[in-house]
């Protein structure tokens, strides 16, 4: 009767509602759209129609409309308005409606939306259905979208279904339990009794889901893990039956019996046998059997072997078994299938630290993988190769790795070259080999070499005094050929030739085979090429220029050409090179007598690594490069300057100290800093100009001078040191009153005045700028000007930033030969809390004692 009624109702409805477009027609229409806009138009029209049918509660065609909506959803269009309709479909008694409804629920709903809770009741009803496929749909949906709340509500239903006589339902219920435990681990308890009996099944579906469920439980709790230790013999028996039983067409995959189940069991055995000698003992035999009996011509067999190897490496297996496992991986490496080679390398990489010697035996195969066409295999092989390098195999390994470095894609070069340098540092058999290897890295990796390789190489050359003649010859050979694409090599080469050029030109022949004769002209012409090539970087040219300057003292026959080249750089467009050009050319003129001392060979550098903690010089390098990271050329310059020609700079600043001290008449106090060459005081001003650009003669403000200072000294520390030394070493001072030169907007500038007894015409002013505001003052710049009859010299400030209630100092020295009244015009500019302040003032209140 009810059936007849339904048929009549549907007939009535069909008359009332015309049938909507079929799913396949919609798909055809969408596919026929030639542009994205056209497609959007079709879909918008259909969505509008679907919405209207939803509003009219058209239950007959609901499943068709939802199916269309699901297709639209897959194309990336919004479909959330179908969520509630899916629930209505699920509640329908018709199987088609349920099937589409549950599909829609899985696609449109998940635990993130509250709507999904409405489904719980439908699920509960369907889990109790008498039709196995309705129960199946409900279980499938629960397994895909179960949230913690749903899990709690439905756990007991699922547990009941796990004991169902129907295998189709049992296997699905087991995986639902798996999902529920993932969401709410505490619910594990209620499933435990039903779980064990799943293993006594014959049905593979139930077996595999049972093993999956137990695996999840064991991974979740240690108690459960111990509880399931006793099933090891059962699992071993199931596995044994699988491999020994004859061909069973239902579960056979290319001659292997149910690889899916085998892999799951192997994985569970791994978890049960881990750190458990007894359980491991119980599975040793079966693992050996699987490892030896599995057919390996297809991917399936290798899948099982791969899982077996993982298990053997994870449990407390016998050593023979471990060797067998590593050998399986070795065989994998020779496999034609790139996927198998990939997993082999991955697994070897995991085990190499446990069992290095076993992996070592496959070294040559691993090195072969460096030539693999697949980039990810090459990457793995490279990592593995570096993990295998030791002092025994370093020579052969490096030969291969250098070959790889030469031929590989750019993306590998930086990483690979740095790793070779590290490995060489750890395992180099001797200095000569180490140097040769670094040289080969510089040649093979070209511009991809990281900066650390340059400094490492230079440092190594510097400390291996016995090899310098040899290496400088090798580097010369490299430099002679075109090196534009090898800037780091050029940098190292020019550094070494600059330092040890005399060995190259006049030293005993270092190389055993065909010793080379280099003339000074040869060297000059190569340097000319380097310095004028537009391909070389500024940094490389800086190396080359300094190297050339150094060579002027290594050459025996004359250095006119060197002078010419250096003079030419005095007008170079790049400011750093120009500064070098100007400074160095002075060394050929007024300071000719200082040149040999300034350009002496550097003492061997002792540090092993640039970041060694106990080496202040190295620390400075690290810090400088960090501080100036990102400032581009300038930052690099300081670092390079330190590394490349540290000594000459140190001597420069020492000389400057002497000069300042001399001018102050406290020469004795600072004399211990100096090198033998003591300049006369007439040189002082000029050298100051040369080195710092300090303006002694012009009364104009000297901001440029200040900037140059900071470049020269590169850190504030050194200039502080200079100032401190200067001030502390004054033995007697006729102290004068301090004056306030400026006070405005919370900035107070005080001058402390001093006259030097040795040099009464000079007044030393220590300017202290005090920040009395609550904000930090940054970019502070103090400038001063005096009338033409005076001479003003400004040293660099202690900082450019003044924290609240803090101060900075700057020393000014005024020479007043005519003893006229002191006047000064000052200008300050700074940034206080984002606003730039600029102000000028006149200082006329100098006490007469300060100038009379």
């Amino acid at each position, binding site marked *: 009767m009810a*059936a007849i009624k339904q*048929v009549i109702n549907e007939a009535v409805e069909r008359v009332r509602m015309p049938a909507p477009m*079929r*799913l*396949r027609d919609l798909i055809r229409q969408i*596919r026929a759209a030639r542009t994205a806009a056209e497609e959007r138009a079709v879909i918008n029209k259909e969505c509008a129609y679907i919405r209207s049918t939803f509003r009219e509660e058209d239950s*007959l065609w609901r499943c*068709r409309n939802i*199916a269309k909506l699901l*297709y639209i959803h*897959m194309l*990336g269009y919004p479909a959330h308005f179908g969520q509630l309709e899916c629930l209505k479909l699920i509640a329908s008694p*018709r*199987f*088609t*409606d349920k*099937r*589409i409804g549950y*599909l829609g629920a*899985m*696609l449109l709903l*998940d635990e*993130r939306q509250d709507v999904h809770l409405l489904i719980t009741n439908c699920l509960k009803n369907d889990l109790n259905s008498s*039709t196995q*496929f309705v129960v199946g749909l409900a*279980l*499938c949906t629960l*397994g*895909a*979208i179960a949230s913690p709340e749903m899990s709690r509500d439905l756990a007991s239903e699922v547990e009941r279904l796990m004991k169902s006589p129907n295998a189709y339902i049992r296997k*699905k219920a087991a*995986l*639902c339990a798996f*999902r529920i435990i993932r969401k709410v681990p505490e619910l594990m308890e209620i499933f435990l009794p039903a779980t064990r009996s799943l293993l006594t099944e014959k049905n*593979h*579906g139930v077996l*595999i*889901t049972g093993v999956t469920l137990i695996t999840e439980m064991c991974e979740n709790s240690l108690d459960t893990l111990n509880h399931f230790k006793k099933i090891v013999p059962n699992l071993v028996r199931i596995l044994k039956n699988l491999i020994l039983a004859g061909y069973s067409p*239902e*579960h056979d*995959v290319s001659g292997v019996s*149910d*690889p*899916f189940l085998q*892999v799951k069991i192997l*994985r569970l055995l791994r978890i049960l046998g881990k750190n458990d000698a007894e359980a491991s003992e119980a599975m040793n035999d079966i693992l050996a059997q699987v490892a030896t009996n599995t057919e390996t011509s297809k*991917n399936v067999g*290798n*899948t099982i072997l*791969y899982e077996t190897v993982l298990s053997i490496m994870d449990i407390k297996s016998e050593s023979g078994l471990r060797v067998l496992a590593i050998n399986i991986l070795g065989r994998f490496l020779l496999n034609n299938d*790139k*996927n*198998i*080679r*990939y*997993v082999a390398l991955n697994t070897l990489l995991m085990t190499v630290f446990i069992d290095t010697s076993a992996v070592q035996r496959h070294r040559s195969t691993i090195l072969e993988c460096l030539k693999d066409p*697949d*980039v*990810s*295999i090459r990457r793995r092989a490279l990592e593995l190769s570096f993990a295998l390098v030791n002092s025994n195999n370093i020579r052969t390994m490096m030969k291969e790795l250098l070959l790889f470095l030469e031929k590989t894609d750019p993306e590998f070069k930086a990483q690979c070259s740095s790793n070779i340098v590290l490995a060489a540092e750890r395992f180099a058999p001797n200095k000569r080999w180490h140097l040769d290897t670094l040289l080969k890295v510089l040649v093979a990796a070209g511009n991809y070499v990281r900066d650390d390789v340059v400094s490492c190489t230079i440092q190594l050359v510097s400390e291996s005094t016995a090899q310098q003649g040899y290496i400088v010859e090798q580097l010369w050979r490299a430099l002679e050929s075109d090196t534009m694409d090898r800037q780091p090599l050029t940098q190292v080469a020019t550094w070494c030739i600059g330092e040890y050029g005399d060995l190259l030109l006049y030293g005993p022949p270092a190389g055993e085979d065909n010793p080379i004769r280099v003339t000074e002209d040869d060297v000059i012409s190569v340097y000319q090429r380097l310095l004028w090539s537009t391909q070389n970087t500024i940094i490389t040219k800086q190396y080359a220029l300094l190297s050339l300057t150094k060579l002027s003292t290594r050459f025996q026959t004359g250095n006119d050409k060197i002078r010419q080249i250096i003079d030419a750089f005095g007008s170079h467009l790049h400011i750093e090179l120009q500064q070098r050009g100007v400074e160095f050319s002075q060394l050929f003129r007024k300071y000719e007598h200082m040149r040999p001392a300034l350009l002496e060979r550097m003492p061997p550098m002792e540090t092993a690594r640039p970041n060694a903690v106990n080496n202040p010089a190295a620390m400075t390098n690290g810090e400088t490069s960090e501080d100036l990271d990102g400032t581009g050329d300038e930052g690099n310059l300081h670092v390079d300057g330190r590394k490349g020609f540290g000594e000459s700079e140190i001597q420069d600043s020492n000389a400057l100290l002497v000069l300042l001290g001399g001018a102050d008449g406290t020469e004795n106090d600072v004399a211990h800093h100096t090198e033998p060459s003591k300049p006369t005081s007439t040189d002082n001003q000029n050298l100051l100009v040369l080195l710092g650009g300090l303006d002694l003669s012009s009364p104009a403000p000297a901001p440029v001078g200040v900037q140059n200072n900071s470049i020269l000294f590169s850190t504030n520390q050194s200039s502080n040191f200079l100032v401190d030394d200067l001030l502390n070493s004054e033995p007697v001072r006729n102290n004068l009153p301090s004056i306030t030169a400026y006070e405005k907007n919370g900035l107070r500038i005080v001058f402390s005045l001093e006259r030097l007894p040795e040099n009464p015409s000079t007044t030393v002013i220590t300017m202290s700028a005090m920040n009395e505001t609550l904000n930090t003052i940054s970019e502070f710049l103090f400038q001063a000007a005096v009338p033409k009859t005076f001479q003003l010299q400004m040293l660099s400030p202690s900082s450019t930033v003044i924290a609240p209630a803090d101060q900075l100092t700057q020393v000014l020295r005024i020479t007043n030969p005519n003893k006229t009244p002191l006047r000064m015009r000052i200008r300050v500019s700074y940034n206080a809390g984002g606003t730039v302040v600029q102000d000028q003032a006149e200082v006329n209140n100098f006490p007469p004692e300060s100038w009379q």
Partner: protein
Amino acid sequence: MQFMLLFSRQGKLRLQKWYVAHPDKLKKKITRELITTILARRPKMSSFLEWKDLKIVYKRYASLYFCCAIEQRDNELLTLEIIHRYVELLDKYFGSVCELDIIFNFEKAYFILDELLLGGEIQETSKKNVLKAIAAQDLLQEVSYGDTSIEL
């Protein structure tokens, strides 16, 4: 398994099955990223790629890419077998399957997948059992139409 995607050589998504809950936006982002990455890979490359903390296993069958995201401890070679098993099932069901079959009968493709995997884990290792279950449900669907014969 965390999710499975089927997409064409033109980068069009043909099927998506998520076993983890992500917002729609993230799902779209992941899908887009993976499709671009995989389509850019050359054929001689391996079928695996490391992506965030997941392993991606993919394989191309004719014009369709099958792509699965699995967890670190999962066996990537076995995942290839699962993909292959799914393709075999589609092939048996549609009779030498092609992309168009999956486009026009996408719901069937989902039904078959749901009989093979549940919650991202394999539930049935016998091809015969999967196809039997699907056939039985298709029959049930026809019966439920009655004589009204509603088709999608």
